[in-house]
């Protein structure tokens, strides 16, 4: 029988069951309404046992499923090699890719739900050597709530994150992480800035990333300001200075930031002998980016 990919009839988990479990657990939360007070302790103990048994069964089922996937990939690859028509080298890279993804998925799973502290550390080791930008988000989650904590594990986690960032070779790899980091309600603002710094420091795409952040109007102005500031410091040039002008808009930028941007822009223009012309200043005035207060500060700054 010839089997195509369309013929693979796999059983799927019934989502209705998950709904039942979820509803049952909600019912359990209201147990005081329907369980005799003198039987509550025994009831709770039994339910905890049932829950534990359920979780173990699910974990085992997950592991069995993993083994099935894994065996499938190994046997599939081998059959191709055994029966290849001499074009093995052409197809080998695809088989290696299957193998690599298989391993990566297992590593990620184990990292998120480690069976032991040892295995958690092993996955961190692997991540320090082999993680890629796709692992960043998982690593970030692990970092926020690590299954096991120690100084060594924190060091390994940092190494793994640095490794991912250093391997990022296009901005699409990093943008999901940046978005997640900037929108994460669990992080305080200083933590966000720290994380942002860490991401920026570690990647060779730093300048491109900063430019993208600077232009991203959905991003909070504080981060745009931070990005532009870094950009100007990191790659001082006429091009990067122009990003400062993005902060001139009173609709989008707080006043103190606008003042800073004006001062910095003016300073850089003077320092390179390219003073702002009267026309340019008039244009800015016409654009409404210089309100009265700012113009005053601007004039004060020019007098300094």
């Amino acid at each position, binding site marked *: 029988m010839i089997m195509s990919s369309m013929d693979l009839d796999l059983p799927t988990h019934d989502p209705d069951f998950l709904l039942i479990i979820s509803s049952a657990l909600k019912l359990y939360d209201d147990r005081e309404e329907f369980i005799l007070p003198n039987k509550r302790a025994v009831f709770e103990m039994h339910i905890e046992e049932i829950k534990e048994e359920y979780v173990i069964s699910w974990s085992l089922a997950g592991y069995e499923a993993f083994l099935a996937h*894994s*065996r499938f990939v*190994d046997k599939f*690859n*081998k059959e191709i*090699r055994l029966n290849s028509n001499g074009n093995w080298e052409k197809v*080998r890279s695809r*088989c*290696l890719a299957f*193998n*690599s993804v298989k*391993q990566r998925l*297992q590593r990620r799973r184990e990292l998120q739900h480690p069976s032991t502290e*040892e295995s958690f*550390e*092993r996955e961190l*080791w*692997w991540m*320090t*050597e*082999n993680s890629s930008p796709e692992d960043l988000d998982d690593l970030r989650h692990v970092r926020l709530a690590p299954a096991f904590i120690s100084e*060594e594990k924190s*060091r*390994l986690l940092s190494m793994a994150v640095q490794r991912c960032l250093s391997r990022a070779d296009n901005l699409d790899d990093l943008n999901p992480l940046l978005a997640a980091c900037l929108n994460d309600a669990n992080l305080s603002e200083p933590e966000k800035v720290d994380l942002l710094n860490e991401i920026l420091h570690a990647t060779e795409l730093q300048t491109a990333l900063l430019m993208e952040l600077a232009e991203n109007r959905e991003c909070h102005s504080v981060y745009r300001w931070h990005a532009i500031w870094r950009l100007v410091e990191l790659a001082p040039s006429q091009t990067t200075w122009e990003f400062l002008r993005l902060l001139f808009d009173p609709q989008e930028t707080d006043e103190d930031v606008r003042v800073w941007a004006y001062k910095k822009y003016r300073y850089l223009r003077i320092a390179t002998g390219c003073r702002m012309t009267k026309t340019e200043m008039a244009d800015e005035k016409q654009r409404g980016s210089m309100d009265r207060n700012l113009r005053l500060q601007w004039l004060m700054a020019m007098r300094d």
Partner: protein
Amino acid sequence: MIILVDDERRQMESYLDELKLANYKIEFRKDVGAAINFLKENLADIELLILDIMMPPGTLFGSSETNGGLRTGLHLYELIRENSPKLPILILTNVSDPGVHKHFLNESFCWYLRKEDCLPFELTDEVKRIFDEMKSDESEGATPS
């Protein structure tokens, strides 16, 4: 006999299965201490050692010298080499650092493979190739590398 030293049994299962299928007698040891003991007792019978690099340092090595376990295999390799300079050793590792690969480049009786580049059944091919190379070098009196 082949001895495979790797701390991740589950990851190595398919490699072990393939070697067994090819009728190689294979022993597995998952930590440095057990590997050393086995080597001491069975050195004469060992034809090839397959060695991982990232492993817990155990009690034999310090955590700092192995970079917290990230380079344990390097130290185990050096230790084994002190007593067995001609034992064939195949490094089979996830380490991607080219510095580590470079470390083994000029070593005799030593081969290097990244797990990522080696499908389980290909390890058997590689082992066969090493044994063939050893045999042919033995007959020519050269040093294999």
